[in-house]
């Protein structure tokens, strides 16, 4: 000993200290045998708050909602075995949408690994295909650095979930604690700046366009580039569409916004994609629900693609000008070059292009029957939009209600629309809303859901009660798995195989039994007052059960494997 007193901490204390030093506010988790030391360490401090969910899937989704709405990484803590496997759906959800999570999974003691011990599962193996990276910590000396690396990897480049598997004995061993300020990983160097020559080419192409089109995705939100995207779009004067993941990156109420594109996108957005001559894809990945049939996709355009992940470029659609780089610096550079050139796309051609777009818009493709005696789901979303003045955080589950929310709630700000786009995880909406509400305690957080989706994580109503989370649940209850029913109607001659929700609970009583407020709304005339009343209850969770038209379908629709110009508008209004 050299006489200098050094404080040794247990792995469990180190873990919690590391989270604190990383600036973590909330950990979403559920205790169990392998993480008992860690839970004991949590008990002894007050800096990191633990949110006890009711199922580990909920923990991952809640952390995900927190991350999506703040831009900061979400943190999850679960036990070994079933704790880890239950979290996998949430991890895969975050992975598909590139959401930064750090997921700490307990593991059986190192000496027991591989022995089929109680609650043992190969967490690193199981999560490998659905994480950005994962670690198994075998020595307490590596713990602090591994946590730092996990946060670094999760939040940089194309973000994503990182799993850190920590055996129980590692959390009991002691070592000196020091948390590195930064880490450098020789095998991981994400790019930021785009190639100047490529950016120049892109600018030349954009300025020479007669029918330019901007197609932006979730990457713009993840890359905090909404302001630059807006500035650039206005500078260019081109129409812009957002993907499902990109909604809010450009203000939806702006006249240059032509709506969402893709399978349930607007007529004008899809037609503009099909007819444009220069297409700028930015922070978007040419997903199959966006592109439709690859051979028919935007056939006459020169394509520019900006993405931080090189593997996203030319994965499904070949592009002419690939730019690997973070969206924000690339957009900034594009703006600078356009301004410097003093040029703009030809005025006359652009006016002609907007005239064409106005004709497409005139189809009013999101029109629905406003005189129906039944509650139309679209109307409910419109009311939600109006009564929250477009300023709510809206989470959703997956299915028809998700599409209607995306179509009818006009998001003007990024990080307001929280949905599982890539994996399409039913059950996402409610736990995600918990994470959003914790991050934004004063904000209105609405969970737009359906009676099928909400049942998948309904247990989290209990978590909402415990932490006083006043989420407003908008349940579009059509007694069907609506999107399944829609496809069965279109493509299976109305054979509604197992899509009818028999034996539904009384949602009003259900909400009440969890200590919340429940409402059932059955008439169109009651929608407005009910929602007003619900939104007034600032400190209560209100479950609004809207009994909606069972036969309503989501339009427009492009069938899988068709082109953007082959949309269905509705049964009454097929395209010629």
């Amino acid at each position: 000993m050299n006489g200098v007193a050094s404080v040794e901490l247990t792995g469990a204390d180190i873990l919690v200290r590391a989270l604190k030093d990383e600036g973590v506010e909330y950990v979403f988790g559920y205790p169990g045998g392998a993480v008992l030391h860690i839970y004991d360490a949590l008990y002894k401090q007050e800096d990191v708050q633990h949110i006890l969910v009711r199922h580990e899937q909920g923990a991952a989704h809640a952390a995900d909602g927190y991350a999506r709405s703040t831009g900061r990484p979400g943190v999850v803590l679960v036990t070994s075995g079933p704790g880890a496997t239950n979290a996998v759906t949430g991890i895969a959800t975050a992975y598909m949408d590139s959401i930064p999570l750090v997921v700490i999974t307990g593991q059986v003691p190192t000496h027991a690994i591989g022995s089929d011990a109680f609650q043992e599962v190969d967490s690193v193996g199981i999560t490998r295909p659905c994480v950005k990276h994962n670690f198994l910590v075998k020595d307490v000396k590596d713990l602090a650095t591994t946590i730092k690396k996990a946060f670094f990897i999760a939040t940089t480049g194309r973000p994503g979930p990182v799993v850190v598997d920590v055996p129980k004995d590692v959390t009991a061993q002691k070592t000196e604690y020091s948390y590195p300020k930064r880490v450098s990983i020789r095998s991981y160097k994400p790019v930021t700046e785009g190639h100047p020559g490529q950016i120049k080419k892109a600018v030349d192409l954009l300025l020479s366009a007669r029918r330019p089109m901007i197609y932006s995705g979730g990457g713009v939100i993840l890359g905090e580039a909404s302001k630059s995207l807006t500035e650039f779009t206005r500078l260019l004067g081109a129409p812009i569409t957002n993907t499902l993941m990109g909604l809010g990156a450009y203000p939806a109420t702006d006249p240059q916004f032509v709506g969402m594109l893709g399978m349930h996108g607007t007529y004008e957005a899809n037609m503009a994609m099909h007819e444009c001559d220069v297409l700028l894809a930015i922070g978007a990945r040419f997903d199959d629900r966006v592109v439709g049939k690859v051979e028919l996709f935007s056939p006459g355009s020169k394509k520019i693609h900006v993405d931080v992940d090189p593997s996203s470029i030319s994965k499904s659609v070949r592009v002419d000008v690939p730019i690997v780089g973070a969206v924000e610096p690339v957009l900034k550079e594009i703006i600078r070059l356009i301004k410097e050139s003093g040029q703009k796309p030809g005025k006359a051609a652009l006016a002609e292009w907007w005239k064409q777009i106005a004709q497409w818009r005139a189809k009013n493709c999101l029109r629905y029957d406003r005189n129906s005696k039944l509650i139309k789901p679209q109307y409910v979303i419109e009311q939600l939009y109006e009564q929250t003045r477009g300023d709510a955080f809206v989470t959703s589950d997956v299915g028809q209600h998700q599409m209607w929310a995306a179509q009818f709630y006009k998001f003007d700000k990024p990080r307001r629309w929280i949905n599982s786009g890539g994996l399409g995880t039913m059950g996402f909406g409610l736990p995600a809303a918990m994470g959003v509400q914790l991050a934004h305690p004063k904000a209105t957080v609405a969970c737009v859901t359906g009676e099928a989706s909400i049942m998948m994580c309904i247990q989290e109503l209990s978590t909402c009660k415990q932490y006083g989370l006043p989420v407003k649940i908008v349940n579009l209850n059509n007694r069907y798995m609506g999107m399944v029913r829609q496809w069965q109607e279109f493509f299976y001659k109305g054979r509604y195989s197992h899509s009818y929700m028999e034996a539904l609970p009384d949602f009003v009583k259900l909400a009440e039994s969890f200590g919340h407020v429940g409402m059932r709304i059955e008439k169109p005339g009651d929608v407005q007052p009910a929602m007003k009343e619900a939104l007034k209850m600032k400190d209560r969770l209100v479950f609004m059960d809207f009994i909606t038209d069972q036969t309503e379908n989501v339009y427009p629709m492009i069938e899988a494997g068709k082109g953007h110009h082959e949309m269905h508008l509705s049964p009454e209004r097929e395209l010629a």
Partner: protein
Amino acid sequence: MRHIISILMENESGALSRVAGLFSARGYNIESLTVAPTEDPSLSRMTLVTSGTEEVIEQITKQLNKLVDVVKLMDLTEGPHIEREMMLIKVRAVDAGRDELKRLADIFRGHIIDVTDTSYTIELTGTGEKLDGFIQALDKKTILEVVRSGVSGIARGEKSLKVG
């Protein structure tokens, strides 16, 4: 087209399964895969033989580069390179066949490394084609066992795949 991709990656447990998992998850094809530590024990060198269209190969190299454990990689088939594979082959060797097999091994510059009354084990190194050629030159009925290492490769000239 056939490509030989050479990869330097962190020599950590699970690194190999990340590569193998990537190939199965994305439906890419692996013809052969060899892996061993390098002179720097913290690094593993992997040689992977795959085939696909240019688009598929481009995706494969991008996806491999995306793996956090991958430090560097190189498509050897893009430039002049040398590839070698080693084969250990056990053949039935009796009566007059013994001399014939010895001659054949010599022609292919193989070595007989184990001998019994009834068998030879021959070690042979070369390109995959050469090894295939040797197998074809044998009477199928005499082959008792074939062990191939998979391809290792290196770029010609000064070009090298190295960290730092």
